[in-house]
């Protein structure tokens, strides 16, 4: 099975968020980037399938500026991905999710791809558009919010479950298709030191993309942080009953969120 995984570098969870000097976007200066959480699930799922289906290959693809994009590609190789392609956007980031999907789709279309995996969304912009957009671009079905995935060799189809409002939907689909992972219900593996060292010298195929010429129609104009929370209004009470009555009254009359 030829598996392609699309991944994205995102700021690590502990990052202190700041707006850029002109206030239009997130300031990436000095920020440490890591593989996006759901993308990590996608890589893990790709590697599990590769182990389960003899002769499989995993090709990891990422779009973005240096050095963070190259770093997440090398991290994915260290985890066990076989090949890597980097759509290099120079020093600028491309943040229109559909333009990103178009550029990724162009790269993926040139690779053998039975199955295309990605995270259901990235932890920074939380758009969740790349998976479904890739499905349309590659003219194959796409499935979002997938929590587990198996290859049924006897019947030549993928079986998987999706977490939706209705519950866990069970599906089966022939290949090729796109699957956006919500969360691996297995713990993503960590890379071992020899693999990390080896990944530093691994070849990465590179395509160059000028973000200004990528057809972007969706740009960040303002990036705002909420006013610091001033802390909870502590409700004074003498008895638990009084506490309950006061809280219910506040939720009804002041906060207006009582059902």
């Amino acid at each position: 099975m030829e598996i392609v995984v699309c991944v994205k570098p995102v700021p690590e969870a502990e990052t202190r968020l700041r707006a850029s000097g002109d206030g239009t976007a997130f300031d990436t200066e000095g920020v440490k980037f890591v593989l996006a959480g759901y993308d990590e699930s996608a890589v893990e799922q790709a590697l599990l399938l590769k182990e389960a289906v003899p002769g499989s290959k995993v090709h990891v693809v990422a779009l973005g500026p240096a050095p963070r994009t190259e770093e997440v590609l090398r991290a994915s190789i260290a985890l066990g991905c076989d090949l890597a392609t980097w759509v290099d956007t120079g020093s600028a980031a491309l943040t229109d999710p559909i333009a990103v999907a178009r550029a990724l789709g162009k790269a993926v279309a040139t690779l053998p791809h039975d199955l295309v995996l990605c995270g259901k969304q990235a932890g920074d912009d939380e758009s969740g558009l790349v998976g479904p957009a890739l499905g349309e671009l590659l003219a194959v079905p796409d499935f979002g919010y997938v929590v587990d995935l198996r290859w049924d060799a006897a019947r030549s189809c993928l079986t998987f479950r999706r977490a939706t409002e209705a519950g866990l939907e069970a599906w089966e689909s022939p290949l090729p298709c796109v699957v956006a992972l919500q969360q691996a219900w297995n713990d993503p593996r960590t890379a071992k030191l020899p693999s990390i060292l080896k990944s530093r010298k691994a070849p990465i195929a590179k395509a160059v993309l000028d973000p200004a010429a990528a057809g972007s129609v969706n740009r960040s104009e303002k990036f705002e942080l909420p006013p610091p929370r001033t802390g909870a209004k502590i409700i004074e009470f003498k008895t638990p009953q009084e506490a309950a009555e006061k809280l219910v009254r506040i939720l009804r009359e002041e906060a207006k969120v009582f059902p």
Partner: protein
Amino acid sequence: MTARILVVGEVHGSRLSGPTLEALGKAREVSPGAGNVIGFLAGSSARSAAADFGRYGVPEVWCANDARLDTAPVGAIARSVASAAEAAGASIVLVGGSTFGRDLTGRLAVRWNAAAATGVTEVNLADGVVRVRRPVFGGRATETRRLEGMRFVLALRPHAFPLPADAPTNPTIREVAPGELPPNLLAPKRTGVEPVATGAGPSLTDAAIVVSGGRGVRSPENFPLVEALATSLGAAIGASRAVTDAGWRPTSFQVGQTGKTVSPQLYIAVGISGAIQHIVGMVSSHVIVAINSDASAPIFKVADYGLVGDLFQLVPALTAEVRRVRGL
């Protein structure tokens, strides 16, 4: 600037879903005026649900009345939505913030050559430009994005909007043909649905109210305290990682960075100290209440209202008061 907005309906039972109604209310606010908001429905139940659009003042509903779309993956439906939007002269397609709505947004943006955004909390139209506000980084920041072009697909953030007022009308039904559907888009099969493991309550990410328990609950035997409060409020039940790691509740209950991100109207944290791991998953809730015996717990820094005291006394009292007020 007025725009014709097509609201894509999602049907639960034979009624429009909550996220669809939120989208409908927002569409009416963004583009007031008779006939500016039109509906779309797909599948064999399309015509019966069209009456529900009429209840909220939508004069025209486009139906892709084709049973193949009942269980088809979203890619098959996107084609009919694009055809309907073109035929109806809509420049904006607005959908609710469900899993379906977000998936549709990505497919449709490519198919219909539109600018797209999800998780939207505000929409502004001016001079041919659509500006949207949307929370990012798990609600820790908000961005304003400028969308350009002739066509726009927007998915709202769920639970961020009130439901629209009734304005009954008798909608005109228009048929849209789903056209040639490529066999590969119809080949996948949904083979079953396991209902969410929270019992009768709403699912965690879908609920308007979430009550979560943490380490302060002390043991799995005490968790029914949290469940009783949730039931009285019609809320979903969540848990901190301490609780799911200890196996008191399955991982699917976990709210936080490595679990689910929730943004309900009301979030009640019971016996949760407020590790950053947990905060990231619930900080964008509209109103946060914390109940904890430790007045210095970090949860009180992000909460709107706090009760400092013994949760084993406070939670049952609160459940009783909620039940009394709600007449349960």
